[in-house]
């Protein structure tokens, strides 16, 4: 029945666009919220009947090879949570009814594409879903339809197009060499004929394509513009889940189940991961735009995931997935905080605001939790995933990379403290002495996300054995 996760949102969009506009316009945002929430609920009862039953008729029409394993479940949960948060805050942040409707429709298409990316098991379907998600992202980034938004969208289109070419070339080369697009078949033929030049080329092209999509240094140039110029709900959605599913998840999936963790691939991962961590973190320090700072932070955190993947041990892969999940939660939280600040003060410039937590206590508190989690301060969720990453690196003998990963946390903490000092932790200036906490539509998602971060951190010992370690396979 996992087909339904792709089909239902898609059909929903078609129904919403039937020519009874008036009803549908008010229905669409609700539909987005309900569907994403439904996805979260379905995923949380993983053992229920839904996942096991085969849906005969639909199965014959849609010949996708869909597999739902633990990693996919984790991602589906992530997608559900972040889409839910996005849909909820979009109701507050997008004022125009027509825009709200457009946004909800786009969100639903994107939801079905992301679900597809997570569950497919052949490389061409993966490519198709990646493209759907990318096209929706272009429109979402340019949603505000001003010059800066177009610039961000344009950069993303260009980079994404290049990535698509790479991915498509890689896919076709793999199809030629192995005669199939199925993950397991490609994997089998790759192990049979390793190191033939065409395979090296194919793998290289495919990886570079995914690196661009994930925003790994040195392919990250589109990312800060795209994240920061997009409207706030879109930033949450892009940073929280889209690039993570499109780029990072696809990378993990392809590296683990298609290419196999070959030594040379791992070296590339380790090197790029370490560079990404450092470059992203250092760039984040100097930013004055709240969302831009978070974008660079996002780049840096993706570096941790790639680095963990490079350790090639089951623990490393589990840690990478765990950090991916944690990052989706706390980075969405921070982007929601940024949205709240922008909504209430009208600016994203961190130098112009100060001491907001005196007037916006919940936003202030949750942003502290998000920041500390991202910086890897215990007992929050981010600490545990980073700890597992470092343990994985050490146990595979990558001492230097482990040191980089650990000490980069100081830089991470540094830029978050700068942000906290400028925006939240300080004396409130005259200009903003009358502002209020953002409305319920923003505060509730903040509380939910912060609670997840804290909860995972505190109950980590419980979930470690049951959920995280099996992720490594």
């Amino acid at each position, binding site marked *: 029945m996992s087909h339904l996760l792709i089909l239902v949102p898609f059909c929903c969009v078609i129904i919403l666009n039937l020519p009874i506009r008036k009803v549908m316009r008010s229905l669409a945002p609700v539909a987005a919220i309900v569907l994403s929430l439904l996805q979260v609920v379905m995923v949380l009862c993983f053992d229920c009947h839904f996942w096991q039953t085969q849906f005969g008729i639909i199965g014959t029409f849609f010949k996708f090879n869909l597999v739902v394993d633990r990693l996919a479940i984790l991602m589906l949960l992530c997608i559900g949570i972040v889409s839910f948060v996005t849909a909820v805050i979009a109701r507050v942040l997008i004022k125009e009814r027509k825009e709200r409707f457009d946004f909800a429709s786009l969100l639903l298409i994107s939801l079905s594409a992301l679900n597809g990316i997570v569950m497919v098991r052949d490389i061409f379907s993966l490519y198709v879903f990646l493209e759907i998600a990318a096209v929706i992202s272009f429109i979402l980034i340019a949603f505000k339809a001003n010059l800066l938004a177009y610039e961000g969208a344009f950069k993303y289109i260009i980079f994404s197009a290049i990535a698509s070419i790479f991915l498509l070339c890689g896919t076709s080369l793999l199809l030629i060499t192995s005669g199939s697009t199925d993950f397991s078949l490609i994997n089998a033929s790759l192990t049979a004929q390793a190191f033939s030049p065409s395979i090296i080329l194919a793998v290289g092209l495919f990886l570079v394509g995914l690196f661009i999509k994930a925003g790994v240094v040195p392919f990250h140039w589109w990312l800060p513009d795209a994240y920061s110029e997009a409207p706030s709900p879109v930033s949450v959605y892009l940073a929280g889940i889209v690039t993570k599913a499109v780029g990072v998840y696809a990378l993990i999936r392809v590296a683990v189940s298609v290419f196999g963790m070959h030594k040379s691939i791992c070296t590339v991962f380790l090197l790029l991961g370490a560079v990404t961590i450092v470059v992203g973190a250092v760039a984040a320090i100097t930013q004055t735009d709240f969302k831009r700072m978070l974008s660079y932070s996002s780049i840096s955190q993706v570096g941790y995931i790639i680095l963990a993947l490079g350790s090639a041990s089951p623990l490393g892969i589990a840690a990478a997935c765990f950090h991916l999940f944690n990052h989706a939660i706390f980075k969405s939280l921070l982007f929601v905080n940024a949205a709240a600040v922008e909504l209430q003060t009208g600016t994203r410039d961190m130098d112009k605001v100060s001491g907001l937590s005196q007037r916006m206590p919940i936003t202030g508190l949750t942003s502290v939790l998000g920041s500390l989690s991202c910086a890897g301060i*215990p007992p929050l969720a981010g600490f545990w995933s980073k700890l597992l990453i470092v343990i994985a690196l050490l146990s595979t003998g990558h001492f230097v990379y482990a040191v980089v990963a650990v000490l980069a946390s100081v830089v991470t903490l540094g830029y978050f403290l700068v942000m906290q000092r400028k925006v939240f932790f300080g004396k409130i200036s005259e200009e903003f002495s009358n502002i209020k906490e953002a409305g319920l539509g923003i505060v509730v998602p903040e509380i939910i996300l912060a609670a997840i971060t804290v909860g995972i951190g505190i109950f980590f010992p419980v979930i470690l054995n049951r959920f995280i370690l099996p992720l490594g396979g």
Partner: protein
Amino acid sequence: MKNELFIFCIVFIPILGALMLPLVGRFSKSLRNAFSFVFVLSALFFSCLLIPQALSGKSVTFVKSLPLGFNFSLTADALAVFMACTSSLVSSIIIVFSFNYISHYENQDEYYSMVTLFLGAMMGLIFSSNLILLYIFWEITGVTSWRLIGFFRQKQQVLKADKSFLVTVFGALLMLLGFLMIYQQIGSFDLSAIKLAAKTSPVPVLALVLILCGIFSKSATLPFQTWLPDAGVAPSPVTALLHAAVLVKIGVYVFARLFIVTFVVPDFLRILVVIIAALSAIISAGAALLETDLKRIIAYSTISQIGFIFFGFAVGNELAITGALLYILMHGLAKAGLFLCAGIVEQNTKTKDITQLGGLIKTMPVTAISFLFCAFSVMGVPPFGGFFSKYLVFAGSIKAMPFWIVLVYLFGAFLTVIYLFRVFNLVFLGEGHGLSAKEKGPLMIFSVALLAFLSFVGGVLIYYPSLFAKSAAVQMLGLMR
């Protein structure tokens, strides 16, 4: 089972209580204050209930096994109970002081919540016998002190708060690397497992050095000391709590817990610690002589005294360790008293510059006498508590260490006398510079007087604390009676 329950109460009543304090504060301020005091006092109460068991030389352990060696394990041995009693005693008095001191500032909810959470995390750190658990509580104390140092919210204060947070986190991360290296070798974070394994295969020296960096950063010892004087921008009870009595003792405590109880430490590393601590003691004593800001002087004095505690532990024989443990207690009481006196002076005269103060003994007699008593204890004047601790440290070291090192420390002790008399002279004696103010806040005066009284009584009745410290030292060294 009963004792295990006590440990849980000590650790989790303050931590969980801290989370509900802001909610209570919405309804009633005095109720919140009372709750905060009760939570901290309960930690003291349950710690005291553990004393008989600690004196008997046995330890209580609670272990919940978890995968990857992340065991949740709490242990109460004599060292831990001694430390818990000391920290919670000093913290309770400081909380009483803050009732008056903090009452007219904003963000009180956060203040009480953070102080209580800090104490809870401190207790957790003391009782945890797993490196990761220890690290978690260690960082929580860092987060709370970050919020507390930045309490006044001006840019200057927040910058200093950020600095102290970053420095201690940097040290902590180095320490974490050290922990992970040990984990690499032994495969567990559990201290008892490490202790067992360390007997046969010594822990890598690099790991020990990394852990030392973390310890020095938290205890503000050379070369990580600069954050401590800067943190003086915090409200006085915070400086007393964090930077004199409790927080800086974390590093010392972890040193005792890991380097004496758990690991087998090579001799040259002990000498290294002794030398670094000596440098730290002398240099910061010199800085205290030159400084004119009242709180910075006391902060430098703390750095200097911490050096003596490290000295006692690094010497590592029974006498010196007993002395170092007593030092933690006596210095905590006396230094908290000094900081709180400084707080009274600062709040009433609105300045911390000792060159502008003078003659305050006429208008603030109780504060002046309390300050003098606490200063006597820190200097090591008999019969105050500080004398005995200092005496035992020196008596233990004279047998074990080269004579010149002991002389260096004696010089440090001599400097302590000079700079504390200088402060007392300039602030309380001589002519006033037009800045005279009455003592305000009965609870503030009561708490400094209590600390001064305890410093004195602790010396007169030294038998009881020294008995406790001695049995802790015996248990730490694994000596059998």
